[in-house]
């Protein structure tokens, strides 16, 4: 929670200078690739908050914090390994916290709908939790994440817009059963800005 308060305060301070944009999104995600072996259920719990500042025509840079929770309950089953097996219920969790730098390009558009492309990259704190019966195993680590994304902003008025976007997320890991966390995210949010991109 300390980090979230600091991020909020930072965003508030940064918003006091120059042309800028704040955005807040509710995000969902679908695991893909070998990560599905760990968690296959769709994630309905996620959010993103970010700040952008214009550095050129239709081009902004910024930073964002993105949080996504993955969870799956697997019924009691037997898992076989080299010289034995275990039968248990299984619960798998991942908590992904991305701290990204972003580069965003907005297409020049005369309508109220503005498409854009972004690339986000930065450190990510990943907490994986595996509960086998009564045994609780945690693994926390910092990774570098990468996330290209596309989206559209739909103007509500001069200050606010609705933000719809879709992104691909990649985080390398070193587990035997999956080498990376990969998921497709979809989100809806709101953007506050102090000017209209032209």
């Amino acid at each position: 929670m300390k980090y979230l308060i600091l991020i909020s305060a930072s965003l508030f301070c940064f918003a006091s200078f120059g042309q800028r944009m704040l955005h807040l999104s509710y995000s969902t995600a679908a695991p893909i690739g070998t990560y599905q072996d760990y968690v296959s259920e769709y994630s309905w719990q996620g959010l993103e908050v970010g700040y952008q500042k214009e550095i050129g025509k239709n081009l902004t840079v910024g930073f964002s914090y993105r949080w996504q929770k993955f969870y799956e309950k697997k019924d009691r089953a037997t898992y076989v390994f080299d010289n034995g097996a275990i039968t248990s219920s299984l619960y798998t969790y991942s908590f992904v916290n991305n701290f990204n730098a972003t580069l965003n390009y907005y297409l020049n558009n005369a309508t109220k709908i503005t498409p854009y492309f972004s690339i986000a990259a930065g450190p990510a704190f990943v907490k994986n939790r595996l509960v086998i019966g009564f045994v609780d195993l945690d693994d926390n680590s910092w990774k570098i994440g990468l996330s290209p994304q596309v989206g559209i902003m739909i103007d509500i008025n001069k200050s606010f817009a609705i933000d719809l976007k879709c992104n691909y997320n990649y985080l390398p890991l070193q587990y035997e059963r999956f080498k990376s966390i990969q998921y497709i995210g979809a989100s809806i949010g709101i953007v506050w800005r102090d000017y209209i991109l032209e």
Partner: protein
Amino acid sequence: MYKAFYFLLLFGSVILSGCVKYPDQYDQEKDKDISLTYYDNTTDFSQYATYAIVDQVGDVGVEGDSLIVTASVKSTLILDKINANLASYGLQKVDSSANPDLLVNAHVLTLDVEYTSYNGGYWDMGYYYSYDPYYYGSPYYWGYGGYSYYYPYSYGYSYSSTYGSVLMEIIDSKNKNEITNQIKMIWTGMVVGTVNSTTGIDERITNGIDECFTQSPYLGN
């Protein structure tokens, strides 16, 4: 600027609403039970035809700094279940004096376990539950005398609780090493769970034993 303030207020509300991290995981205590087996995967299990089993299941308890072993009140329940499973794999029970191919041990263990943290790489069960077949110093250890009880794996407990275990062992009595006077443990089965309540404990024990043997079809080769 007040618009930004409201924006951040909304952000804070969403954050707080998302602070509940873990949903309730278990409906019943039995859902937390684990049935676990290890075996020596270099052993040809088809060579065995007979076994002898202990008369009583040892109940391992703690007295001071020492482990004490008494006869378990669950002896009949556990031994009957083990015998039924071994019979289903075509193994014949014989007296220990009839030179059996296999010796079967069983113990129960109940311990109060305090919270201990555990960190490290995870999920690769093959690593955490790795097990090298180990040897007893003497075939006479088939009884309980001098037997040092331990788990060949490492667990991280997330809270204080009382844990009960049924430990089953199968020892290769057919291929004794006469030079070193050693015999080899070739199979271990464990049923482990919390026993804060005794409700349904017999069913949990028998189900767990069945699961251990179901995991081990090679015993019937």
